[in-house]
């Protein structure tokens, strides 16, 4: 996570530029690998992938500082990796192992590390929004200066919880960024079929808060710069904002998805807009990094993903007794 909120006004350090690349590679490689394993029946449960949405995730989280929070959703791998949750523990979790982030009890849809500010992926569409405003209320009441990013999809914007929580956050001026990653579909349903306006960020007006738009959610620096601005705004006590970025998921909605609702041509078109490739070309053309540097990072990322699989494979299954623990706090 970024350490300084002033960064917007400075040049971004090379270290940070490369680190963001690493995180995007991690997401891509991690989810490619999980998808590979899903196809071979090596992953026991439901998963949702962030491939194609790397920039939309990394750019947002990169604008946070230590101690800030996120809430995430079913498609949480991207956010979670961006929050620097350990890949080994994530892979172990997805494989249901005792060493996983959630001891194998949560799985892909619930990867979280509460100690690291990740208040949970959430299997319920719209289910994390209340948690996000509550976390923001704590920051406000305790005057911590910390902020929350609440991640959700385009489909989630029609849940009642969206309406209620944006309104409450607005009237209480809570430090929360509502962030809709618009990948054009909720499962099979195109967003255009389920809202009667062009973009959802415009709904911010209903709550008297600013609505922001990131037209190219595959442009990491655009996402990052917008989020630096928004984090500043929110941290300064101005109340919440709603922001929407446009991106695309390359894989099916979840583990099994015949994909009849979109054409191969459309998917291919979007694959051309690969956020990682774009970022790479960007950095190279601006002379900020070399292809070799970037490829080396990717190679290392692939290694760490392979290592995470090894870690997960070698990790023990949770004991049967462990199923009966962790229900109540003392």
């Amino acid at each position, binding site marked *: 996570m970024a350490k300084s909120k002033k960064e917007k006004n400075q040049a971004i350090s090379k270290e940070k530029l490369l680190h963001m690349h690493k995180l995007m590679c991690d997401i891509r490689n991690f989810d490619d690998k999980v998808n590979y394993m899903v196809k071979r029946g090596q992953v*026991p*449960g*439901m998963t949702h992938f962030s491939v194609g949405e790397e920039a939309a995730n990394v750019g947002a989280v990169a604008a946070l500082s230590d101690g800030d929070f996120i809430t995430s959703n079913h498609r949480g791998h991207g956010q979670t990796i961006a929050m620097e949750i350990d890949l080994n523990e994530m892979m172990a*979790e997805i494989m*249901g*192992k005792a060493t996983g982030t*959630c001891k*194998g*009890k*949560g*799985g892909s*849809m*619930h990867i979280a590390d509460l100690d690291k500010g990740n208040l949970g992926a*959430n*299997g*319920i*569409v*719209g*289910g994390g929004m209340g948690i996000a405003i509550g976390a923001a209320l704590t920051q406000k009441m305790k005057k911590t200066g910390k902020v929350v990013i609440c991640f959700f999809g385009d*489909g*989630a914007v*029609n*849940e*009642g919880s969206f309406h209620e929580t944006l309104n409450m956050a607005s009237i209480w001026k809570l430090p929360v960024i509502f962030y809709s990653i618009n990948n054009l579909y*909720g*499962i*099979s*349903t195109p967003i255009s*079929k*389920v*809202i009667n306006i062009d973009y959802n960020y415009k709904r911010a007006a209903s709550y008297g808060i600013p609505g922001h738009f990131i037209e190219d959610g595959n442009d990491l620096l655009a996402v990052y710069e917008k989020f630096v601005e928004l984090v500043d705004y929110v941290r300064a006590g101005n109340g919440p904002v709603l922001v929407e970025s446009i991106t695309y998921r390359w894989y099916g909605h979840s583990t099994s998805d*015949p994909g*009849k*609702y979109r054409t191969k041509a459309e998917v291919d078109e979007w694959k051309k807009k690969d956020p990682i490739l774009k970022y790479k070309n960007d950095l190279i053309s601006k002379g900020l990094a070399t292809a070799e540097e970037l490829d080396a990072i990717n190679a290392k990322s692939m290694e760490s993903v392979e290592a995470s699989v090894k870690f997960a494979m070698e990790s023990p*299954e*949770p004991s*049967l007794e*462990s*199923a*009966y623990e962790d*229900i109540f706090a003392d």
Partner: protein
Amino acid sequence: MKNETKVMSVRDAIIMAMSEEMRRDENVFLMGEDVGIFGGDFGTSVGMLEEFGEERIRDTPISENAISGCAIGAAMTGMRPIVDVTFMDFIVYMMDNIVNQAAKTRYMFGGKGQVPVVFRAAAGSGVGAAAQHSQSLEAWFTHIPGLKVVAPGTPADVKGILKSAIRDNNTVIFLEYKAQFNMKGEVPLDPDFTIPLGKAELKREGKDVTVVTYGRMLERVLKAADEVREAEGVSVEVVDLRTLMPLDKDAILDSVKKTGRVLLVNDAHKTGGFIGEIAAMIAESDAFDYLDGRILRLAADDIPVPYNARLETAMLPDVDRIKKYILKLVNKR
């Protein structure tokens, strides 16, 4: 077609039941998230969009409150909606509409109006979907006067009960099990085939022990019953409720009076589950006086459903545990 049957999956039985009823009555329609081109989260409406079109196979936004409320309002004014809830866990967002509206409308309004909606909810664990996607919440609804609740356990029963639910003039919560969409069995092809709500079926007749069950656990109970009969000569009577509300108390009590021993099995959390109600109903009835032993329950353990497959499996009654409990009742172990 009258007496023909065909082997098909629960999924296909659901599609067949809905399709037949939609052909029969133009007021019947299906609504829910991704029921159209996607064919339903569990494939339970594959092909229906092609036959019935977008008006009657109605994709919705992710708005469970509006979905359920809309269905109820449509039902109050003459339609007969079927709602695909998909994962039963999402019914949390429909509670006002189901419990405060649909269940009470007719009563509050002094006998006017009716709310013929079927909420099809995919219940239970078994697909590695973890705590928020694996619940069997029928006990919430059996507690609310004004609702019917059904949970058939074979493809044929699924077809017959679903058709009756669609024809019923009340709100029906219909449980289908994620783990069993691919379960196969003979299904009558007759479009007039229905199974009345409120009638349990003796899936096995027996004299030593009564096992009362429904839904997902029926398969395991039948297997256990057959195995203990085979191996130990214990004659088990299996009462398959199919309908939880209205409850066929007589079928249960008659069987208990006959055998004097009873085991109750379902896949919901044990504490507060519907089989507790059955135990209580037996214990306060005259069948109590016929009991030769405790009323035993086997249900899911009282823990959120874990992701790990081994843990997920372990928290549910399996055939072995069911057998063990049956034998315990007849003092064979």
